[in-house]
């Protein structure tokens, strides 16, 4: 779980990094190539609907009566590049590195709402940097992994939801932890769709003003704290399936790059360090170690896929990562009797000393993992 705002930033960063990688092989656009964007209170005129891939320049003029915001958006509304707060009567030049594909330019008068949109088709692809084919394969394999995780999660969630709807408290509690595994393994991908995470994985303290509490943790509280399942819980259970199907349907479209995979692996360890080691994630169910394991497995998957390149660029780092993943796996195995099962010790039974030991092992892995992205792009 993380705040929506952060997620958007992360997505924008990932986009910026993607753009960076495209930067090496393209030619600088001349001033004449700029697209003029004339924004007003109810219009957003653009001087071109197509432009070659690479360096795209928007010459923006706000002829409206209020401040506006202009964005270049991916088809799923993730931001490629944006400029906020362009005052009435002022001009601004926005630049971005954009790969071939379909985009929209949005003007948002008053900096709110859907805004006025124009299509922008970016042509070619020759101008995007040619990537190491091993990295293309890593991304493709990782996308498949993320899809598999979503596909495997749905039946597990449906089992959980059925138990809730049957009013079977014990069966629901039993199905809860494992239903989260696929989500936890690929959380950075799931979080890149900014609107799903706040619906399915938000904790009570993470709610914004006016936000209704839905999702796993809301049900967790009902099952463990309130110890009862009412009509509201049953409705929320259905909603959880619906929201996760949305996730399942969108994984394939997620913007994934080698850098975002590496950073995602690091972010998974961040999740462990800030949420799981402290026991905050599943504070009622105490199934934190299942999430912990899922995060580590997801990070390890991303690393293994990037390893052919990372190990060549930085063999010492790869050696250290192999060692620390092994050490953390071994430590986690102490908390389950069967290595093929995800029945972990309840986190409220994990002592302070043991938590410190887990925390140390997470730090030992997360520090070198923070260097993976650099080893991949070297």
């Amino acid at each position, binding site marked *: 779980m993380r705040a929506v705002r952060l997620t958007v930033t992360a997505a924008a960063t990932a986009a910026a*990094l993607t753009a*960076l990688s495209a930067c090496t092989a393209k030619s600088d656009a001349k001033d004449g190539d700029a697209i003029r964007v004339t924004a007003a209170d109810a219009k957003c005129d653009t001087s071109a609907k197509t432009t070659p891939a690479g360096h795209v320049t928007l010459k923006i003029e706000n002829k409206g009566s209020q401040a506006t915001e202009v964005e270049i958006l991916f088809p799923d509304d993730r931001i490629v590049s944006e400029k906020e707060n362009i005052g009435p009567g002022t001009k601004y030049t926005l630049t971005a590195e954009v790969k071939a594909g379909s985009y929209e330019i949005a003007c948002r008068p008053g900096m709110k709402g859907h805004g006025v949109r124009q299509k922008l088709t970016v042509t070619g692809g020759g101008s995007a940097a040619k990537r190491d084919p091993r990295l293309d394969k890593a991304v493709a394999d990782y996308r498949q992994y993320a899809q598999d995780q979503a596909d495997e999660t749905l039946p597990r969630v449906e089992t959980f939801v059925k138990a809730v709807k049957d009013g079977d408290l014990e069966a629901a509690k039993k199905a809860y932890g494992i239903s989260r595994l696929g989500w936890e393994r690929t959380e950075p991908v799931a979080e890149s769709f900014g609107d799903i995470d706040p619906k399915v994985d938000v904790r009570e303290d993470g709610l914004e003003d006016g936000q209704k509490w839905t999702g796993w943790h809301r049900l967790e509280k009902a099952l463990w704290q309130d110890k009862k399942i009412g009509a509201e819980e049953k409705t929320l259970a259905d909603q959880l399936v619906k929201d996760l199907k949305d996730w399942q349907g969108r994984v394939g479209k997620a913007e994934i790059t080698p*850098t975002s995979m*590496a950073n995602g692996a690091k972010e998974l360890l961040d999740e462990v360090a800030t949420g799981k080691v402290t026991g905050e994630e599943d504070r009622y169910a105490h199934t934190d170690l299942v999430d912990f394991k899922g995060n580590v497995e997801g990070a390890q998957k991303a690393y293994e896929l990037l390893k052919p390149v990372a190990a060549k660029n930085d063999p010492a780092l790869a050696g*250290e990562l192999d060692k*620390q993943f092994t050490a953390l796996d071994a430590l986690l195995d102490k908390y389950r009797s069967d290595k093929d099962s995800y029945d972990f010790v309840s986190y409220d039974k994990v002592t*302070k000393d043991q938590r*410190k030991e887990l*925390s*140390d092992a997470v*730090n*030992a*892995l*997360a*520090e*070198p993992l*923070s*260097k993976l*992205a*650099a080893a*991949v*792009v*070297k």
Partner: protein
Amino acid sequence: MTETQGSTPSRRALIGWGGAGLALGAAAAGGAVAMARTGNDVDPVAAETGGAVEFHGAHQAGIATPVQDRLHFAAFDVKTEDRAEFVQMLKDWTEAARRMTQGKAVGEGAYGGLAEAPPDDTGEALGLKPSRLTLTIGFGPSLFDKFGLRDKRPEALVDLPKFPGDNLDRTRTGGDLCVQACADDPQVAVHAIRNLARIGFGKVAIRWSQLGFGKTSSTTPDAQTPRNLMGFKDGTRNIAGTETDRLKKFVWVGDGDGQDWMTGGSYLVARRIRMNIETWDRTSLQEQEDVFGRDKREGAPVGKAKEHDAPFLKAMKPDAHVRLAHPDSNDGATILRRGYSFTDGTDGLGRLDAGLFFLAYQRDVRKGFIPVQRRLSAQDALNEYIQHVGSAVFAVPPGVRDSGDWWGRTLFSKEA
């Protein structure tokens, strides 16, 4: 702190630190006026310029060098079983310490590197002066159970006995190794520990750490002693950095003292001493002065006029702190004190979680801290107002000689 700039050469020249002693004469003389005015024992030149203290020398800096205002002390547990990996970390630490004590950033700095990688340096000390940062490393008894070091453990590095009244918190006690970071700017001290901890991840993990905000001792002669949180000057007859003879006799491990690798080193005792601040504050002035054996205003021993007047111990109450701690009451046992006041907020009951983080250096713990503390823990009137809640002891190796040397070389290197 800047990426490239080191210390000011003029300051280097003043604090010519090497060999067995300290050449502080020039600084002390030049700053006499400032010292008289402020009543502080800061080395005025270095403090005013935020200068650097020489990292290299026969002894580690941070022991006999002038006491800075702030402390961040960290104890670490070893997490690796690989001796070569641990030694490499000590070398990496040394290099980082060498740079940070000169006011330079760690590694390739805090910015300007690869955008995809986290910077080597964490950056919060950028733009700050070296602030007389000293970094001092020590090895705890438990380290010698690892890496085949059993035969290298000095006899003088004993496990401290349990003293009456000790109420030690396990999570604030012990450690395989420690780093004492002292600086005039707290952010510089914290930056140093933070960056060393980061370099250490996977090899070592912080076991506990302590911030100290005000020095309680002085190693500069003729200066007034800073007050502790009880409002008293304590430890006025500390060993000064210029007292080569007393340093040699009481602080530095000499040839033939035991393990050769420790020659030029020292032994450090760290104690977290919680003060019952609120009950102390309700104590009458007379009783407070009786407890210490000094007057509160001047810090003069009972019956004397000035802080540095020689105390007449028999004039004090039998359980007065000064009387019991004095070398004359302990067969001459003398230690170099370098403690700091601490306040870690409040304790949940609305009481200050505050006290003295006691740091003392000595040539042999068995002849220094232990006999003194045995006496104090049994008899000291101050015990009603304090409690020892954390404890650790470390062998502090000799100094890093030059740019090719590293922390712990004499212990770990076979050719040493």
